[in-house]
Structures are given as structure tokens and as C-alpha cells.
């Protein structure tokens, strides 16, 4: 933590708030039957509804409503008995209708909370983040600013792909989060991570952050202790956990600088620069009334019955915090080890590796060791690495079959991280073959013994520890492609020594 940041904290209390948009993992879009899958050739998952053709009519996706209710229940919200969609009117070509269907003053879920855990010097600390609302809306199309090297400034025109327009989104809005002090950036990050894990546990979204399926608007304000709340800024479209943490931190430092020099904070939208971590002033926000929200006349109200809500409540899985406690006991590891693997974003990857057949200790070793180191070095999330749980299962399988040594396994990881292809491709491209036929190993052992007759005598004389140098010589002769344990067994057999 920088001294600059510490100075902010001694003078000011931060208040943060988060609005998180997450794409639901439904088969079809929110209001039409077009495919909701990611990617696809531009404008191939489109129909009259999501292209905003006159006369086309939206119909609500049942699963999207169910997913939102389940998310609301998991966030300890009340599910309202009756609510409607609203039109948010604005002119921008990311929505061909010239409005986005959202919810405004009648969200489906209200007044919940989510407990998040942050690691501190004094051990894990739990913060209760209160949830204001969870509502449904549709995603917008994707704009490509053309000419001027893709930047919005200097672009000559824009190109629009409507595949994403109409994909169901849920927006989760927190109440102002107070009392986090210097932990504000960590609490913000932990909250978004917990939200992501919850969505995944519920199976309502696989939250592919690298594909932009989770986007966060980060509100920050500062006040001196005992004074009124300060003016807040809203940093838009912060798309990764690390960026959420950085956006809070840099905005706190920027606002403190201004306040100290007697300047005012302007209520505005700011942009987050992923490369520098800075925020810059964006457009001045249109007032809510400028969106001219009104109840969507093409859709009828949503009135979930008690029976439906209870049926959905029955489908809620084990929540992530309970699951973490269970896994920690299963694995027999400390609070600290558990917290650090959670912080590293390794938990689900470890569980997936175990599900794929890897021993728990080996799964933890790979993900929290070498792979976490590489992810930190590259400044990315573990799940963005080109190594999957099934790769680890494959490598571990080869090790236990005696087809790979630990050293070769490292080489395979290197190859995977460098994007050289699949495990089997890398094994053959890199010529990673364990010399396992006894004849060639015995020949190498015989040669090594001939080079050091004194050591052979020592071993036969009972100094078995001396076997190490012969094994080393054999490994060297086979360029590390032999299984050291097997060489040792063969060596002792050859010398007629028993351990």
C-alpha cells in the first residue's frame, strides 16, 4: 500500500457503491428467441425483435425471470409480488429500437445483502454489503469505431453488431457501503468476486469476465469524518476484479488530491483506463428524467406467485461461503491457505481439477504455485491462462502412469502457457518421452557404475545414500528423460542391495 493511499485514509472516509451487470447464461435472448451465445459471425443472431423492426413484439424469457428470482433469493432479497419492465429512451446506435427495455422504479428483487470476506493482517474480516435491488434488462449491441484506429475520437463512422443486443442481463445495485476504511478497494473486489461465484454456483451464468459478461460501475465518494457525504463519481464499465480494486483506489487518491487543494468533486461519469489504472472524465450524465422512463406497453407485468418463488427457493444450491468452509475441512488446510487460494481465484479451478480426477493436493500445488506465479507475472486472472483443469488431469495421469517425470511436467506447463497446443501435442513436439525400457536404463546404469567403481562399492557396503550420485549420472545420460525412482530401484537390484 502506497504512502499516498495511506494519506487519503488518515484524512477521509470512503463511501463506495457498485452497480454490476452480468449476462445470464440462457439459451435465447431476453425478449426474442435468437441465440444468446457469445461470439458468432456479426449480426447472425438477430431477428425483427432485436433489430427493432416496427411491429415486432417482445416476449419475456421465463428462464431469465427465474434466474433473476433465484439470484435475488440467494442475495437474501424480497421478491416483489408485482412489477413491470420500463423503457429507457435514448438515441445511440447500440440499441436499434432507440430504447432499452429495463426495469426502473419497480425492480423484481429488493433489499438484500451479501457477506464478503476480506483478508486483513488480523485474519479474515467479514463485511455485510447491503443490496438495494436486482433487476432485469437487455444487453446492447456492440459498436466498433472505425477509422481513426478504432478510437472513438477521430473515428469516421461506427459499425454495429447486434448479436449481443437483447441478451438478458441482471443488474445488482448495492446500497452505499460505509465503514470499510482503508479496505474499500478490497471490499469492492471481494464483493464482485462473491457475486461472480454466486452466479456460477446458481448456474445462472458462467460469468466469462474475459468476454465482458460482467461489467461494473463503481461509485466512490470521500468525506472527512463527521462531515456530510461527499459528491460521488461513477466510473463506468470496469471489467475485471483487479480493475474494480484499482478503480476504487485511484479514484480515492484523485478525489483526495482535489479536495485537499480546495477544489470540488464534480458529479460525473468517468472512464477507467485498463492500461494505466487511471480514470478520466467522461460525458456529463444525462439526468434520469432525460431517459423518459415509462412502463413498457408491449410487455405485461411479472407477478411471481408464492408457490413459484418457493419452488425456485428449493433449487438454490449450497452458497459459496458454506461451500468454501466445507472444502477447507475436506482438504484440511488453514484459514490462511484457504483465503489465499480464494484470493488467487484458484478455488473453482482446483475443484474442477479434482472433479477431472486430480488428487486434491496436486490440484492445489499446481494452481496456487507455478500457475499463480505466472498469472501474477502476466497481470491476469488464473482462468485466463491457457491451462485448463482437464490439462492438469491429463498431465497428472501421465505422471502417475510413469510416462512423464515431474521435470517433464513442468516443460508441458511451459508449453501450455506459451500456447503450443494440447498436452499430447506438446509432449510429442517437445520430445518428452520417459526412457522406461529396462534394457536402455540398465545399460546406462552399468555405464555409470563403470565410471565410478568406488561408489558401487560404497553402496554394496551399505551406504545406500551414495546411490544418489549414480541415479544423477543416469538422469544426466538420459537427458532427464528417465524416471529417477525407477533408476534407483534398478540400480539397487543390479547391485543386489536391499533397502
Amino acid at each position: 500500500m502506497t504512502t499516498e493511499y495511506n494519506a487519503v485514509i488518515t484524512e477521509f472516509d470512503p463511501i463506495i457503491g457498485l452497480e454490476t451487470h452480468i449476462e445470464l447464461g440462457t439459451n435465447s435472448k431476453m425478449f426474442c428467441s435468437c441465440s444468446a451465445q457469445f461470439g458468432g459471425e456479426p449480426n447472425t443472431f438477430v431477428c425483427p425483435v432485436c433489430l427493432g423492426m416496427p411491429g415486432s413484439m417482445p416476449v419475456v424469457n421465463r428462464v431469465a425471470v427465474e434466474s433473476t428470482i433465484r439470484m435475488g433469493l440467494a442475495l437474501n432479497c424480497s421478491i416483489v409480488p408485482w412489477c413491470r419492465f420500463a423503457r429507457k429512451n435514448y438515441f445511440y446506435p447500440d440499441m436499434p429500437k432507440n430504447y432499452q427495455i429495463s426495469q426502473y422504479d419497480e425492480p423484481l428483487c429488493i433489499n438484500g445483502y451479501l457477506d464478503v470476506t476480506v483478508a486483513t493482517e488480523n485474519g479474515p474480516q467479514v463485511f455485510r454489503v447491503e443490496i438495494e435491488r436486482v433487476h432485469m434488462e437487455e444487453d446492447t449491441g456492440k459498436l466498433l469505431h472505425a477509422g481513426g484506429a478504432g478510437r472513438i475520437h477521430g473515428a469516421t463512422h461506427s459499425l454495429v453488431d447486434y448479436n449481443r443486443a437483447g441478451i438478458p442481463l441482471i443488474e445488482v445495485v448495492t446500497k452505499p457501503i460505509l465503514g470499510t476504511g482503508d479496505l474499500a478497494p478490497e471490499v469492492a473486489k471481494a464483493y464482485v468476486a462473491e457475486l461472480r461465484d454466486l452466479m456460477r454456483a446458481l448456474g445462472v451464468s458462467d460469468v466469462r469476465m474475459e468476454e465482458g459478461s460482467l461489467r461494473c460501475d463503481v461509485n466512490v465518494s470521500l468525506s472527512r469524518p463527521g462531515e456530510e457525504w461527499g459528491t460521488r463519481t461513477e466510473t463506468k464499465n470496469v471489467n475485471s476484479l483487479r480493475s474494480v480494486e484499482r478503480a476504487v483506489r485511484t479514484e480515492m487518491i484523485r478525489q483526495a488530491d482535489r479536495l485537499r487543494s480546495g477544489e470540488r468533486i464534480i458529479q460525473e461519469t468517468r472512464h477507467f483506463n485498463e492500461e494505466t489504472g487511471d480514470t478520466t472524465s467522461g460525458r456529463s450524465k444525462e439526468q434520469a428524467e432525460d431517459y423518459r422512463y415509462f412502463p413498457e406497453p408491449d410487455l405485461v407485468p411479472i407477478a411471481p406467485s408464492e408457490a413459484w418463488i418457493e419452488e425456485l427457493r428449493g433449487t438454490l444450491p449450497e452458497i459459496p461461503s458454506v461451500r468454501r468452509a466445507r472444502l477447507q475441512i475436506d482438504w484440511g488446510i488453514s484459514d490462511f491457505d484457504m483465503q489465499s487460494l480464494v484470493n488467487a481465484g484458484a478455488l473453482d479451478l482446483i475443484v474442477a481439477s479434482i472433479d477431472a480426477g486430480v488428487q486434491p493436493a496436486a490440484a492445489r500445488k499446481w494452481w496456487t504455485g507455478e500457475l499463480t506465479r505466472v498469472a501474477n507475472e502476466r497481470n491476469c486472472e488464473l482462468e485466463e491462462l491457457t491451462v485448463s483443469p482437464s490439462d492438469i488431469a491429463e498431465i497428472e495421469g501421465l505422471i502417475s502412469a510413469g510416462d512423464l517425470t515431474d521435470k517433464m511436467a513442468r516443460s508441458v506447463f511451459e508449453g501450455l502457457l506459451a500456447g503450443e497446443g494440447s498436452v499430447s501435442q506438446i509432449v510429442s513436439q517437445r520430445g518428452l518421452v520417459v526412457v522406461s525400457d529396462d534394457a536402455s536404463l540398465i545399460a546406462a546404469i552399468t555405464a555409470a557404475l563403470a565410471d565410478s567403481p568406488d561408489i558401487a562399492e560404497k553402496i554394496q557396503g551399505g551406504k545406500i545414500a551414495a546411490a544418489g550420485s549414480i541415479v544423477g549420472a543416469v538422469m544426466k545420460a538420459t537427458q532427464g528423460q528417465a524416471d529417477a525412482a525407477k533408476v534407483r530401484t534398478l540400480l539397487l537390484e543390479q547391485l543386489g542391495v536391499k533397502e
Partner: protein
Amino acid sequence: MTDTSANGIDQNLVVHLGKLARLELTDVEVEHYTLQLEQILGAIASISEVAAADIPPTSHPIPLENVYREDIAIPGLLHEDFVPGAPSFEDDRFRVPRILGESA
């Protein structure tokens, strides 16, 4: 500029609405629309007078709730179905003028 009418409409508001709708309005048009909107809102106000407190406002003419579609994806349109209707299409995408301003 006229004073705010009983319905809260004045020329400033019409100019603002024009801006939100991305319409360039002449002074004559602003005056014209201010008058028209006043009349429309006046008509709505007289209906509101009739609506008693026990009549809840509706947003839909038919008293329906919970109309849903099953979550099944079906193939959408082909480019040849809609590209002829687009003013400009380039690299499989709709080409639109450069716009600096707000998004959702």
C-alpha cells in the same frame, strides 16, 4: 419564450425534448409543438380528473400477467433478409455515422 403553462410545458422544455430526440427544431416549430403538447397534456389532465383514486393506473389495455416464452433458441434472420433494408452495411455490420455521446 412563453411562460410555463398549467401543464408544465414551455418552450425551453420543448427545445430540451427536441435535443433528446435529436431533432433540430426551428423557432416556429418550437412554438407550434409547445402549443400542441399543451393541448395533448390538457386532454390527459381532463381524463385524470375523471379517474378516481380507486382506479389503479394501467400500462396495458388487457389485464394479463406472467406471459412467458420458453428458453429455446431458434435461428434468426439471414443477412440477405435485412441488409437490403439497411442504409449502409459493411464488414457484416451496420454502418452508422460517428456518434460521440451517451450509451446505456
